[in-house]
C-alpha cells in the first residue's frame, strides 16, 4: 500500500507505468515531428515560411529541432519526478 494514496500497490504500479508510457509516447511524437517531420519530410510543405534567407524546414533541421529536444527532456524530467511523488514511488 502506498502511504499517500492508500491504493493497492500492484495496480498502482500498473497505473504509474501506463502514465509513464503515455508521456513517453506523446514526447516521442513531438520528437519525430520536429526532426523527421519539419526538418526533412514536411520541409517542402512549410517551405513557404521564410526564415532569414532560407525556410522554416531548414531552420528546424539546423536549430529548431535541437531546441525542441531540450524542451522535451526537461519537460519529461519535471513531469516524471512529479508523477513519482503522486504515486509515492520517488526515492527516499
Amino acid at each position, binding site marked *: 500500500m502506498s502511504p499517500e494514496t492508500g491504493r493497492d500497490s500492484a495496480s498502482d*504500479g500498473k497505473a*504509474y*507505468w501506463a502514465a*509513464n*508510457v503515455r508521456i*513517453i509516447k506523446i*514526447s*516521442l511524437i513531438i*520528437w519525430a515531428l520536429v*526532426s*523527421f517531420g519539419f*526538418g*526533412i*519530410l514536411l*520541409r517542402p510543405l512549410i517551405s513557404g515560411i521564410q*526564415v*532569414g*534567407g*532560407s*525556410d522554416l524546414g*531548414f*531552420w528546424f*533541421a*539546423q*536549430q529548431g*529541432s*535541437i*531546441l525542441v*529536444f*531540450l524542451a*522535451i*527532456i*526537461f519537460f*519529461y*524530467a519535471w513531469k*516524471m*519526478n512529479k508523477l*513519482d511523488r503522486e504515486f*509515492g*514511488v*520517488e*526515492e*527516499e
Partner: protein
Amino acid sequence: MDQFTINLLFVGASFAIYIGIAIWARAGSTSEFYAAGRGVHPVTNGMATAADWMSAASFLSMAGLIAFVGYDNSAYLMGWTGGYVLLALLLAPYLRKFGKFTVSEFIGDRFYSPTARLVAVICLIICSVTYVIGQMTGVGVAFGRFLEVDNTTGLLIGAVIVFAYAVFGGMKGVTYTQVAQYIVLILAYTIPAIFISLQLTGNPIPGLGLFGTDLASGEPLLQKLDQIVTELGFNQYTAHDGDTLNLVLFTLSLMIGTAGLPHVIMRFFTVPRVADARWSAGWALVFIALLYLTAPAVGAMARLNITQQFWPNGTDAQAVSLEQIETDPAYDWMATWQQTGMLGWEDLNGDGLIQYYNDASPDMQERAAAEGWEGNELNNFNRDILVLANPEIANLPSWVIGLIAAGGLAAALSTAAGLLLAISSAVSHDLMKGQLTPNISEKGELLSARIAMAVAIAVATWLGLNPPGFAAQTVALAFGLAASSIFPVLMMGIFTKVNNKGAVAGMLAGLLLTLLYIFLHKGWFFIPGTNSFTDAEPLLFGIKSTSFGAVGALVNFAVAFAVSKTTTPIPARIEDLVESVRIPRGAGAAAADH
C-alpha cells in the same frame, strides 16, 4: 610571441590542469573506477557527459561536413542531439535504477544469460574500438598542426597523455577531467564563432547570425551563400540534394546509435538518484546544444569566407592570384596548412591564378572552356581542418588560435578517455569478473581494468595510424553498430518481456547483418579494395552503409520478438526485476548492495 609558443602555452596549460585533476581524483575502489562512487551532481555529470560525447568528430569534423555539403548533413545535427531524447526517456533512469556498473551487466542479468552478456560485451568492444579510431585521428590532426609535428608523432603524444590520466583516475578522474575539458572545448569553439558571426553579420550569437544579414552584401547570409556556391557550380547550400530515404535513415541511425553508445550510457550510472539521471540527460543536452547550435553557423560562415577568399572580386571576375596567396597576410593560413599535407593547390593552366570551382558541373565546364581553365585548382582540401583553420581564415588574434588547439585536443582526449573506460570496464568487469575469474579481488579487478585500458590504448593508436576514412565517417560506423545491437536490446529489456533466447538472437542478427553490410561497402575489416559495393551504388534499395544501423535495429527488434514468442517466457524473478527497474524507489539500496 610567435604562434607556436602561444599554442604550446595554451595546450601545455590545459594539460597541466588535466593531469592535476587526475592526480587529485585517483580511483581507490572499483566503485570509484567504474562509477565515480555514484556521487556526481547531475549538472556536473551533464557537463562531463557533454565532453565525453563531443568528440574530435563533433569538434573538428562536423562543421566541415556541414560547410561543404550544406542542408543534407543536418543529419549530424539532429542525429547526434536527438539521441539524447531517446536516452533520457527510454534508458537512462531505468539503467540507473538497476544500479550496476556496466551496460552488459544489465543485459546479462535481465536476460538471465551469460551468453547475452558476452554478446553484449563483444558488441560494446567493437563499437567503442571503431569509435576510438576517429578520436585518435583527431588527436593526430590537432597535434600535427599546432605542435608542428607529423601526424604519427602527434598521435603517439596523444596516446601517452590519455594513458596517464585514464589509467590512474578511472571514471572518477575521467569525470572531473572531462568537466575541465568541456570548459576548454566550448570556449574554444564558441569564441571564434562569436568573432566571425560579429564580423559577417553583426550578431554575437552565431545561431542567430546564420539566419541574419551578410553585412558586406546587405543580403541574408544564407541567400548570399546559396548564390556564390551555385555560381561556382556547387550544389545550393540550403537545398536538399541527396535522397530522402538515406537522410531519414542516417539521422535515425545516429539517434538510436547515440542512445546505444556504452560510454554515454555508463555516465548515467554516476549520479546519486533516478531523478538525477533524468535531469542530468537534460543538462548534458544543454551543454551539447551550445556547440551544436553553433556548428551550422561555423560551417556556413567558413564556407562563405573561404569561397570569397578565392574569388576576392566576385565569382564572375578574376580568381585570386598566386602572388596574392604568397604575399597577402590574409592568405597565410594556406601556407601553414599546405605544410601539413591537408591543403593543396596547383596552377593547372599556368595563368598565375587559382580557380576554385566544381569542375564536374556542366555549366562550369562550359565557362572553363571559354576562360581556358583546366580543372579545379584547389585540388586538396581536407574538411577536418576547417574548424582549426577557421580563426586564421577570419584573421582572428593568435590567442584564439591557441585556444582552438587546446579545445580540439580536449574534445578528442575526453572522448577517447570515456571510450577507453567503457572498453576496460567491459573487459575487467564483464569478461574477467563476470566470466573468467569470478573470485577476483577488488584490487585484482582494478589492476586488470588498468591493464585492459593500456592494451586498448595501444590498439586504438595502431588503428588511428591506419584509419578507414574521415574522422566523422569512422565514427558513423560505430553508431551503426550501437544502433543495431545495444539500443534495441536495452529498450526491450525495460519495456517488454522478451526472453533470453530472443535477446541473443536479436542482438546477433542486428550486429552481424550491420557489420556484413558495412564490410561489403567499406571493405572487409576496412581493408581498401576488398569491398564488393560502394556507397555510391549500395546493395539494398539505395541504402548507404552509414545509414544501415536503423535497419539493423529493426531487424534486431523483429528477430527478438519472433524468437521470444516461440520459446519459454521469462521466469517470475525476471518479471520482478523488470517491475523493480521501472520504479525509482529503492535506487539507493540497489547501488549499496553491490
